[in-house]
């Protein structure tokens, strides 16, 4: 347990938020995609986060000092939103069904923008925490001088 531990934990959080940012970008990019390789319109995706204990060196486990091991975050999977697709009447569209309705992705651009902001803010918070950890380490080094 040292300053580097905090950095590892923050790094996992930054990775998780970057994954989320990637998925939000994907959702926004595919907001009008009516056909996917799997068939049907694009469905919006969400990352699933799960906490996981930080990998600690074996000697720390033996010494018992790993008991207060902190939890990092990891992305365990990506789920598709099960909301039904939005139906838009557009008989001329090549992907329209027999009644002339086109199934549009269940992506709401406003919602995705909010997710984007949340991911960006969470990332910023992680970077700020990292800066604080670095400042603390530097203060600790300058003790007594």
């Amino acid at each position, binding site marked *: 347990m040292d*300053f580097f531990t905090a*950095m590892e934990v923050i790094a996992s959080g930054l*990775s998780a938020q970057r994954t989320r940012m990637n998925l939000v970008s994907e959702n926004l990019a595919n907001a009008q995609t009516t056909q996917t390789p799997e068939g049907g319109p694009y469905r919006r995706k969400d990352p699933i986060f799960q906490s996981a204990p930080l990998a600690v060196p074996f000697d720390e486990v033996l010494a018992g000092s790993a008991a207060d091991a902190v939890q990092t975050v990891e992305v365990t999977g990506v789920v598709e939103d099960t909301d039904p697709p939005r139906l838009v009447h557009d008989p001329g569209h090549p992907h329209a069904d027999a009644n002339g309705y086109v199934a549009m992705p269940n992506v709401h651009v406003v919602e995705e923008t909010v997710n984007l902001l949340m991911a960006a803010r969470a990332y910023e918070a992680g970077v700020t925490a990292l800066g604080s950890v*670095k400042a603390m380490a530097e203060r600790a080094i300058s003790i007594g*001088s």
Partner: protein
Amino acid sequence: MNPLYGVRPVLPQALPTGPRPASGPGFSDTLRALVETAASTDAQAGARIDRFATGAPGELHETAISVTKAEIAFRLLMSVRNRLLESYREVMRMGM
């Protein structure tokens, strides 16, 4: 009459003659460990910078964090080294 008659040594003057205490992990070992930590974190940071510069997939913040770790390890090493040199000079200035 000896004017210094009343003056007696307050402590026995004999210097300890026994064997010197067995040398455990000394300061040089600590310093060496610090140097090794600084060198390995620096090597890691260098490898990550290389990977980033050559476009290998990876997290940008991991690179930045590696560089920060290397910086902190090096600062700690320099701080300990400065403290060591300071105390050495202090000893050298000591009047005999």
